[in-house]
């Protein structure tokens, strides 16, 4: 008998028989038939499920039961399954979850499309006790940075069996996050990781399960944190992993080599505005907060100032930044792109950070976290999490879909973690705003900087497209937080020709591969809400008749 394409591996420990029957039915109903199913009974106290499997294994040679002599828990049971599997690919299925009938068929199609694929994962949803499906998770294209922040690939995961064995399969000591740990290790060596954008797995969410509430297994998040830290250590990425704002999310505090010179480029006119009830010269607070909230010392601040910038402002900048300050006068008409390019040419750092003059840095170590990911050679651009002055989200990465360029998750609150953790973990995105973005010098030069044909709008969109076009990842950094007092300094009106310019180069945006439109819808724009209330005809109150007394 030749080896099948898929070995489904399922560790079994005492599932309710009626639940397991449904899992069983979902596997035998597969449209694709070249599979085997390795079920590892982890010494369940009750024999009924074991007997049920035995009975079916006698009639269907594709079903194989491995019986453990002792209860070894999830890692040992899963590894027994991996050892027994004969298939080219391993598909991991929990003993109470469900596969869609086309699950293996879809996977087989994608394997046929790519000879070098080593890891595939699909979208998933959850099934409640009554069989209702909910919480559909439309996942992004392969996002290694996001996998460090959360186990987003989980179900259905299909891995090349030889690679799983090469990395040593599941590791002891990572119970509860053993799948996350394996995904991290497999993806490091995988030649290709493919996202299958179809829901192929229904994750049973019943009380006490991780699907319903990850807090049900607190040990899992501790193991997850270690798994991510291990990856950073293996890859030589300098940083410390911590627990995120909710269970199963991890934050990375990056460290920067003191020798890495960072140039922060700030175009300004030196204007003032009312912020938090005080009139401030915006660029002064930008520079002050930028320097105050980083431990990295090898920094220069390149301020590209228009000629009318008041001399007093420049003097105060000298006081704030001292010998870190480089002033570059800009005498031409307003062109944001050109000002950034002039600043970049003047800068001496290996890392370039572009910062609007109307921001205020909130988070400590913002520069380390923003610039750190650029140490990975395939990361070309990073961006930050920006808030309006009311702490609602202004920017959490760009999304380009449906013929428009969007700010997904806009107006959500600072505490909101997003539908699937999008707002609290670092993740790959299609683009980021240039209001706060970092890149490596060689990337900036290689892609030709900001296009000066777009002086005002969409220059960052074009920049992000260029970064992507050259094969680099763009990473949005959740723990680099700033206020952005947007539109305090310029008019945001968009001209049709600006959009045409971008479309001529890059085409009409259709679907965003990292931030699907279905999960990224912003909250209702409060300004629009206010507009509609103002525009609505006033409600006429009916005059009350005075009560008549008889």
């Amino acid at each position, binding site marked *: 008998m030749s080896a099948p394409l898929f070995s489904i591996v399922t560790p079994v420990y005492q599932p309710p028989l009626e639940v397991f029957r449904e899992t069983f039915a979902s596997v035998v109903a597969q449209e694709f038939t070249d599979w085997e199913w390795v079920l590892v009974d982890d010494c369940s106290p009750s024999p009924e499920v074991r007997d049920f499997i035995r009975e079916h294994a006698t009639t269907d040679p594709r079903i194989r039961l491995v019986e453990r002599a002792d209860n070894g828990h999830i890692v040992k049971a899963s590894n027994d399954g991996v050892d027994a599997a004969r298939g080219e690919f391993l598909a991991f299925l929990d003993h109470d979850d469900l596969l869609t009938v086309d699950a293996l068929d879809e996977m087989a199609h994608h394997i046929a499309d790519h000879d070098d694929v080593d890891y595939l994962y699909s979208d998933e949803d959850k099934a409640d006790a009554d069989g209702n499906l909910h919480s559909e998770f439309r996942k992004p294209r392969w996002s290694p940075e996001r996998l460090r922040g959360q186990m987003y690939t989980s179900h259905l995961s299909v891995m090349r069996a030889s690679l799983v064995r090469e990395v040593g399969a599941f590791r002891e000591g990572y119970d509860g996050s053993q799948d996350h740990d394996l995904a991290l290790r497999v993806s490091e060596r995988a030649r290709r990781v493919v996202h299958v954008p179809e829901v192929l797995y229904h994750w049973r969410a019943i009380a006490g399960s991780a699907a319903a509430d990850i807090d049900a297994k607190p040990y899992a998040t501790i193991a997850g944190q270690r798994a991510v830290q291990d990856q950073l250590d293996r890859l030589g990425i300098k940083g410390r992993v911590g627990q995120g704002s909710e269970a199963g999310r991890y934050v990375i505090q990056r460290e920067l080599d003191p020798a890495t010179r960072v140039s922060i480029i700030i175009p300004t006119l030196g204007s003032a505005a009312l912020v938090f009830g005080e009139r401030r010269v915006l660029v002064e607070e930008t520079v002050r907060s930028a320097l105050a909230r980083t431990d990295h010392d090898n920094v220069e601040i390149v301020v590209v100032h228009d000629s009318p910038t008041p001399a007093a402002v420049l003097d105060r900048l000298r006081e704030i930044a001292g010998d870190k300050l480089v002033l570059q006068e800009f005498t031409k008409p307003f062109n944001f792109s050109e000002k950034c390019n002039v600043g970049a*040419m003047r800068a001496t750092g290996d890392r370039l950070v572009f910062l609007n003059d109307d921001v205020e840095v909130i988070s400590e170590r913002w520069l380390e976290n923003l610039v750190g990911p650029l140490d990975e050679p395939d990361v070309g651009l990073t961006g930050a999490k920006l808030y309006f002055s009311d702490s609602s989200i202004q920017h959490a990465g760009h999304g380009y879909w449906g013929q428009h360029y969007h700010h997904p998750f806009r107006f959500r609150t600072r505490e909101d973690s997003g539908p699937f953790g999008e707002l609290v973990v670092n993740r790959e995105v299609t683009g980021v705003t240039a209001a706060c973005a970092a890149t490596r010098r060689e990337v900036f030069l*290689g*892609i*030709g*900087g900001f296009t000066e*044909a777009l002086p005002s709008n969409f220059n960052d969109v074009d920049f992000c497209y260029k970064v992507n076009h050259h094969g680099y990842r763009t990473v949005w950094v959740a723990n680099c937080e700033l206020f952005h007092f947007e539109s305090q300094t310029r008019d945001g009106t968009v001209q049709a020709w600006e959009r045409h310019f971008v479309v001529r*180069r890059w085409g009409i945006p259709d679907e965003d591969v990292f931030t699907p439109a279905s999960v990224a819808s912003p909250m209702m724009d409060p300004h629009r809400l206010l507009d509609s209330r103002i525009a609505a005809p006033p409600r006429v109150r009916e005059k009350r008749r005075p009560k008549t007394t008889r």
Partner: protein
Amino acid sequence: MGDDHQGHDAGTVVSSDGSSRHHDMNGDGHGTELDADLREQLAVMAARNRELEDEVLEARHAQLLNRDHVVGIEAEIGRQNADILRVSADLRRLQGREKRLRTRKAAQAKRIDGLEAKLVAARRRNAALTRRVAELEASIPPPSLARRVVRRLRRSGR
């Protein structure tokens, strides 16, 4: 060229206030003159240095602009190629559909021709039968008076 001279060229022996490290050892005023000359020379060289630096920056900036232009053109070509592929695929699909429709149209036309021929024949046969019915009706003698009365009574329902 001596080291000292090189230092002057590079502007490295000038302190931050622009004064020279060469001091007037003789006190005859000759040194002061020399200092003034040097300062003037250094100022000229510093200005030239700034000019050259600006030129380098401008050249780098021009190179950057040029690179953006090239990347932009590459992108447009890429996008156009993608458009061509998409349009070609659409064209192939439409051509296939047009071919299928044309075949179907020809088959329909053939069927219409056949049906029309059948219709003509049927009309001809119908006309002949109509004529024959008229002939036969003409050849039947009219019913008797008694039969006509009976028919009328039946029709009236009495």
